[in-house]
């Protein structure tokens, strides 16, 4: 059985094609101004990559901030459920999922793929990808290079502002005070990790912890998370598609239930 999952995030859209328990293909693209068009685009791309025809995908489920705009399917699943399902397929023993996306940050406590508890940021951008993007711009570094660069830091700097906008002015004043870029970067990563750790602590996640979403690729944030949580976390090879994977799994469950 072949099913599909689409995750339309606030910044990127992702699609996964699943055959039984195996990922056939995935794709990712910027969401832009139309969730529906982005969904069609990533789904077509994923189908093409898998070498399939569009008729061969039996059922699709959508998730993410733009899930309701997706005309390819009428069935949606929550981001929390999709994250838990996707992570569980990749790591059957998973007890906690941390998803740091562009505009959202959530921590999920799960057991056998079932959600036991979760915590999320509210509309504040602190501890999310948009915040890191803004900081990268202020420091004139590429967002994808932030993580590696910060590992070279030798000085501790604390970014104390909780608000993304205030943190940006704090960073700007650090630049003016000639603080080293790599040290500021490390401070920024620490502030993001502190936010996320606070959420994780609130629901006390236990067992194997999987970090997903775009920010999972930032080794600087991951290093701090591990330090604060006092244990190793796992980052899937492609951390951004886990939500879409979960949607594809739910699509499969729906077909099987019928």
């Amino acid at each position, binding site marked *: 059985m072949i099913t599909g999952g689409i995750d339309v995030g606030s910044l990127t859209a992702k699609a996964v094609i699943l055959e039984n328990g195996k990922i056939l293909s995935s794709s990712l693209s910027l969401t832009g101004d139309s969730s529906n068009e982005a969904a069609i685009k990533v789904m077509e791309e994923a189908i093409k990559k898998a070498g399939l025809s569009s008729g061969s995908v039996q059922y699709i489920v959508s998730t993410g*901030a733009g899930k309701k705009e997706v005309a390819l399917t009428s069935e949606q699943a929550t981001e929390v459920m999709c994250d838990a399902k996707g992570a569980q397929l990749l790591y059957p023993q998973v007890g906690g999922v941390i998803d740091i996306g562009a505009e959202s940050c959530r921590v999920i406590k799960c057991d056998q793929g079932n*959600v036991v*508890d*979760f915590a*999320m940021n*509210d509309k504040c951008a602190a501890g999310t990808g948009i915040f890191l993007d803004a900081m990268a711009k202020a420091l004139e570094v590429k967002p994808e290079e932030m993580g590696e660069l910060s590992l070279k830091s030798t000085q501790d700097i604390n970014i104390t502002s909780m608000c993304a906008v205030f943190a940006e002015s704090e960073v700007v004043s650090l630049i003016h005070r000639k603080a080293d870029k790599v040290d500021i970067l490390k401070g920024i990563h620490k502030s993001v990790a502190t936010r996320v750790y606070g959420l994780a602590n609130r629901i006390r996640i236990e067992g194997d912890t999987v970090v997903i979403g775009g920010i999972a690729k930032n080794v600087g944030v991951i290093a701090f998370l591990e330090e604060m949580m006092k244990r190793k976390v796992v980052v899937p090879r492609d951390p951004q598609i886990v939500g879409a994977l979960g949607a594809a799994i739910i699509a499969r469950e729906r077909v099987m239930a019928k």
Partner: protein
Amino acid sequence: MADYRSMYEELGMDVELHEQFMAGFSQMYPQMILDQPNRPKSMSYFDYLYSEQHGASIKELQDHRTRGGKVVVFSCLYMPREIVRAAGGISVGPCEGAEVGVAEVENLLPRNFCPLIKSFMGFKLTKTCPYFQCSDLVVGETTCDGRKKSYEILTEFCPTYVMEVPQMKSPEDKMLWLEQVKRFKVEIESLTNRKVDEEGLARAIKLYNQSNKVLQRLGATRLANPTPISGKDALLVLLMTLMNDIPLSQSIERVSNLCDELETRAARGEGVVDPSTPRIMYTGTPTAEFKLHHLIETSGGSVVCEDACTGSRFYRELVDETQDGLEGQLMAIGEKYLKADCAHFTPNNERIENIVRLAREYDVAGVVYGVLHFCHTFAAEFYKVQKALAEIGIPTLLVETDHGQGDVGQLKTRIEAFIEMIGN
């Protein structure tokens, strides 16, 4: 709807701004309330009241004033309405629960401030609330620092009287409160120029008790699974009872008719949702609007009870009717109002106990704890409430919000995930 423009002008309202504001509301009401499936037929009366909130209801208040009567606006349930009525006055709530006049309010109050206070202050400053405009006195209380300080500013715009609600419930605090109730009686008597007598007060006590009893009965119909009335409709009935003090006996009868219909429904096993729908309790700051109820009920949940000032706290307690003499009656009134377990009290274990009891009685699957931004007392009490509920195996979702619509998307994501989690 009749044209009330000249009445608004008489009341010194900003007619155009008010019109814009009402246009927004009349758009929202059908999709939030009228389009709900399986609505009880008796709700049509409350829909009518809602549609005439700024019309016929205000006309009644104005007619009352033309006859020499007084109108008192209160925005917290500690104000003893019995006393106002016994002195020939009418008490109503102000407009609140929407973002109005933000710029005007922020000239007077800090930006990072309780949205509920900002809301009623905004309505007053922009002259868009006819209840405020036709009131002779606004009664405030000391249930939080924000409110205390805001009433000081409000006195610049309208006559305002503040009652001191104690912080604790020791015998000394009870004495203080009783004195406050007595002073309030004197204040109201001088406002209405009419003495409160034993007979009149007894009638008023009886009437509000009846009103609260019928609301209790309405609450009890929601014990059934599936619930015969939606949370939004139950909230609507409560808000309309609060806002319509003049035809109160008529309201009581209408709520009673509604209960008849709901009890018949429940006996037949009929409800507004599928019996498998997760049953949710709302607790937290007052909901003078439908925002959170609407989010919960359009995300696969059903609100079956509320621990809130716009819920069971409003009608749970009755005044002892057996007291003779004014002194005894005032004491009974004081005792009733002090039983309200507002989060400003310390300690406030009654609230925790009430929540746990409600959760059990109403067999809820989860609790949504709503907090308006910057409401420290309710926000801090979350810790104890969540812990007590966790002990009986009931999960709680904390949502922080305001009266704007900017966070609706994020809130929906969380509420959907919560209901999905407890539904499994």
